[in-house]
């Protein structure tokens, strides 16, 4: 009986270990994130994202004036509060004359990762204009 109880308690200990993470984990997660940021940087500067060779960085060098820290916010021309991906899609369809991306398209994730990374350290100001 005692042996059984020890065995059970040891099984219970295992999940506790999975809650912890190591330096190696942190490194790997950062690498994963930065790989997506790098992919986003490429897309942001690509003449092939839209249909007319225009790229995001032509108006937004270093992703400036994209202001990820201000979303969601009211966009008067859309007439409602929108999130950043909706505004990215507006740009893809208008200045870039291209097709919109799904919210969970890896390209959309990468674009947002790059734009947000270039704005790192700036405080969140949802709704700001």
């Amino acid at each position: 009986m005692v042996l059984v109880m020890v065995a059970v308690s040891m099984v219970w200990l295992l999940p506790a270990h999975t809650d912890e993470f190591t330096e190696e984990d942190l490194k790997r997660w950062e690498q994963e994130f930065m790989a997506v940021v790098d992919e986003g940087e490429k897309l942001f500067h690509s003449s092939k994202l839209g249909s007319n060779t225009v790229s995001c960085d032509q108006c937004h060098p270093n992703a400036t004036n994209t202001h990820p820290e201000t979303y969601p916010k009211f966009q008067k021309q859309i007439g409602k509060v929108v999130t950043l991906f909706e505004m990215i899609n507006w740009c893809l369809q208008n200045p870039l004359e291209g097709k919109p991306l799904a919210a969970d398209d890896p390209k959309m994730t990468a674009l947002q990762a790059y734009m947000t990374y270039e704005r790192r350290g700036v405080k969140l100001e949802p709704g700001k204009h």
Partner: protein
Amino acid sequence: MKKLNRRDFLKGAGSLVVAGALPVSLVKVAFGAGSAKQEFTFAHISDSHITHMGKNKFVRNWDRGLIRAIAEVNLMTPQPDFIIYGGDLAQLGKKEEIDHALELMSKVQSKVYYVMGEHDYYVDLGEYWESRLGPQWYSFDHKGVHFVVLNSILTYDNWTHKRWSKPMDRMLAMARLDNPEGSPFIVGKKQRDWLKKDLEKVSNDTPIIVCSHSPLQKIYKGWNFWTDDAEDVQALLKRFDKVTVVYGHVHQVQYNQIGNISFHAVMATAWPWPYPESYSQAPSYLPKLTVRMNRGDPFFERDATGWQFINVHTGNVDMHYQLSDNQNRSVVFNTKSGRPMDTKFQSAENQIPPQTHY
């Protein structure tokens, strides 16, 4: 924002009427008391970035910007004495782009003096541009003012000549404004020696106007809002009483005074650029004097773009920005303060929310 009083309201109403009736806004403004002989107006168009998409297709948006500026300049009464084109006719220096841009420019009724931009240059180092438009740097005199046109978008030989297997790779690298592998602009020794010689015959009291593509001052290196040998060029201009530098490249309102030299940037016809301070990862040095242009609203294609006409009367420059979707602005040399100042927005209390960039 301060509360409007009646006088402010009337001022605002006046500018609205002018902005609403296009040809009227371009009628030559009344000059102050000066030597009547020396008064003249020239127009300045810049940064059209005409982009070839393949076959006979060009990016519509950028075409429209240049077409509109030309149409508006042609409506000026009286016509400007001449036009300066401030550089970046093309996006990637392609023959198709330069040809198409010059075909659009052929509608202009006045003589045009062209300045070289980096987007015109880095495929063939200006060869095709030069074959269509002449030398990359030159000077001329007009009604007592000495004009100098510089190619300020050169860079160090190592970067230009030793890194690239294909000329288009070099062009693409320089065309990317935020490229960390880019290289700072220079005028270079050869051209500075030419400038020194060119200025030898010019007296100190002759007004000088220098037209360049990049700022001949240092604002933000990361986007080449910068010329590496700016101080060396400024030193050559130091002995003159009145010097003005007019430059393109930055796609935004900038103005400054350094010693005897006034600086004015011009708008692009293609698209606006954010101010460098809106890049939070690096320091930049926008002149404190500058009241910023309105933030561009992407939903209006021509917002925060435009062209300008420039009055030269007392030998200093009065810059009149003609802004497609914003109220026009005038940055005029103020003889009391000895620097260019916005006639409406210079004091903080007159500034408006869209002029805040972050």
